[in-house]
């Protein structure tokens, strides 16, 4: 039985403007209905992505970054409430459901998932997993699809690609499987690629290779990419922009270089401290961020990071800071007492003097042998 053939590759919106942004996300909210109540997984996110550009979305697990990318793609289960506007090439897709979104999946946007061990069908040959979307979306012959799959496997750097087409996922190493996943995602030439923690499940040694491959493919194909990760080290130098997410919100957004050089949000600062640096002595202690992310069913009023923030003041606990642009264009953050500013320095000094933040979390200057709370350098 041959699949129902449909031609969707790029022909759906012939009048799509080629100059506007590729993706505009505006005030997107995603909520899960659970017996405990609504979980506000994504709570008012906005960003814009130009053609051929990359954005990194960074945050701890549970911050809503994966849900955000799945929300944009419309890949969420039925117990989800999605609000806000998502425009792809100027067309609203925020309210599209199942059948309507299917024409976008694969051809317009596709996704590379976190775990290549579980994301490939264990009982289907690799070749078939690549060709099936080609055959369905582009209505090509079997031979042509096989040729294309072979070329794809070669382009993602799989040796002996011809033999691999006939193999099953379990016969490949983790890195190879992730390359296959990338090949599948690229098969129908999407304009936008979501990479959801693409290297988290892999060996450290292959992580860089996969990231390089993604970057290379993204440039060659002039494809936009959303790179989701919990590791700022992964996005450093590989993306145009970075959005840092916390508790379903973007807390800081900046061009990549700027985010590292002019960090403003205390949460971004804390994330930066948790990256191991080559310059550090090998036994140097990495700072984990103390405390846990807030409950997304009943989030606290005020700044969501305040309970864990060494800068937190009384105002932070009652009033939520808006996502405001800073003096530098393209840089926005959500904080009343930004890092590096005078307000921030004063706030920190006050907390250190008091020995605790406004939320009652103890803070110590570094070097205090008994330090158990948030350590400030």
């Amino acid at each position, binding site marked *: 039985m041959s699949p*129902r053939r449909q031609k969707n590759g790029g022909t759906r919106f012939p009048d799509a403007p080629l100059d506007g942004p590729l993706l505009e996300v505006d005030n997107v909210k995603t909520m899960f209905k659970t017996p405990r109540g609504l979980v506000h997984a994504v709570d008012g996110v906005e960003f814009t992505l130009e053609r051929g550009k990359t954005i990194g979305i960074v945050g701890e697990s549970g911050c809503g970054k994966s849900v955000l990318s799945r929300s944009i793609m419309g890949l969420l289960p039925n117990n989800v409430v999605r609000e806000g506007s998502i425009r792809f090439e100027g067309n609203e897709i925020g309210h599209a459901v199942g059948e309507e979104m299917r024409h976008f999946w694969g051809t317009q946007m596709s996704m590379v998932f976190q775990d290549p061990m579980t994301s490939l*069908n264990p009982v289907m040959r690799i070749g078939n997993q690549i060709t099936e*979307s080609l055959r369905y979306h582009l209505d090509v012959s079997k031979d042509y699809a096989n040729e294309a799959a072979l070329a794809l496997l070669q382009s993602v750097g799989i040796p002996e690609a011809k033999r691999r087409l006939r193999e099953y996922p379990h016969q490949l190493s983790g890195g190879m499987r992730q390359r296959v996943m990338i090949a599948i995602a690229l098969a129908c030439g999407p304009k936008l690629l979501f990479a959801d923690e693409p290297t988290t499940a892999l060996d450290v040694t292959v992580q860089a290779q996969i990231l390089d491959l993604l970057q290379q493919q993204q440039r060659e194909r002039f494809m936009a990419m959303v790179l989701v990760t919990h590791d700022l080290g992964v996005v450093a130098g590989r993306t145009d922009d970075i959005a840092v997410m916390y508790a379903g919100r973007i807390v800081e957004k900046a061009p990549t270089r700027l985010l590292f050089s002019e960090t403003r949000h205390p949460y971004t600062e804390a994330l930066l401290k948790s990256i191991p640096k080559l310059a550090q002595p090998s036994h140097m202690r990495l700072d984990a961020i103390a405390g846990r992310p807030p409950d997304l069913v009943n989030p606290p009023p005020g700044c969501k990071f305040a309970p864990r923030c060494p800068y937190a003041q009384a105002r932070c606990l009652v009033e939520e800071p808006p996502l405001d642009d800073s003096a530098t264009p393209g840089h926005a953050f959500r904080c009343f007492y930004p890092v590096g500013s005078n307000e921030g320095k004063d706030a920190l000094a006050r907390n250190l003097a008091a020995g605790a933040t406004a939320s009652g979390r103890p803070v110590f200057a570094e070097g205090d042998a008994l330090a158990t709370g948030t350590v400030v350098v």
Partner: protein
Amino acid sequence: MRTALRRVIQLVVVLLCVSFFSFALISLFPGDPVVAIVGFSSAPQRAEIRHELRLDEPFIQQYGHWLGNFAKGNLGNVYYGPTGRGKVSTQVGQSLPISLQLMAYSMIITLLIAIPLGVFAAYKAGSVFDKLANATAFGSIALPDFALALILSYWVGVKLRWLPSSGYVHPTANLVEHLKSMTLPALSLAVGQIAGYMRLLRSDMIATLQEDYILMAKSKGIPTRRILWRHAVRPSSLTLLTVAGLNVGALIGGAIVVELIFGIPGMGRLLATAIFTRQFVELQSIVALIAIGYVIVNVIIDVLYTVFDPRIRDARAIA
């Protein structure tokens, strides 16, 4: 290659054990088996039959002799009184195909109905359809196949007169009548099996549909129908396959009883007659035959496993 050899040896050992067990079991027969088999007879006649059955030899020799004949297809004799003889193999040759037909039909009905139902119930898990299908299945499992056979034969056969309520027509004689005569028996066997398979496939399928690779397939933009049938059914059917092997046992038992209810001259009737006329040689052969068939079916299913799941194929090659 070595694994294949090991498996063959294993199979031979199992078959030997099972055949020995079947043989020994019936030999537990209390009293004089010769008297039981032929009834009224003279002493010399009994001595002759005793010698024929090698009952005067040690037990192991009896078994060896029986096994040798069994392997050659000589399943022993049926005794009609002290002098009449019939061949068990001839009777089995007539009855076995009929039973196999019945089981094959019910298997086909089962798979044709259970798989789509299970897939759809899993896809619509929690829906009204799912709940209804699940409840119906739970009820069907509690209805024994002989009970359903009697209900169908009374309702469809006697009251509505749509289909014959008993009797068997050979397929070469009249194919339509043959299928008509087999419909109710096959259906009686199938309903319980459908329910079991459906519930099993449904629960495995629900687990599969939560797998990452299903989300991955969805993100490729291929239709739901294709995701369900191409991506989800095969990995979900492994438990089903195992249970199918075990279920053949239930199917055999069910077929024996259902055949009797619908007057179908299969192995069930042969077995019932053998018990009723105390033909213990025949009983031995039939029990051994069924047990061996059951073992072989399960071996075939074990092989099918590797076809269904390439990971096992390789795991076995390594082992």
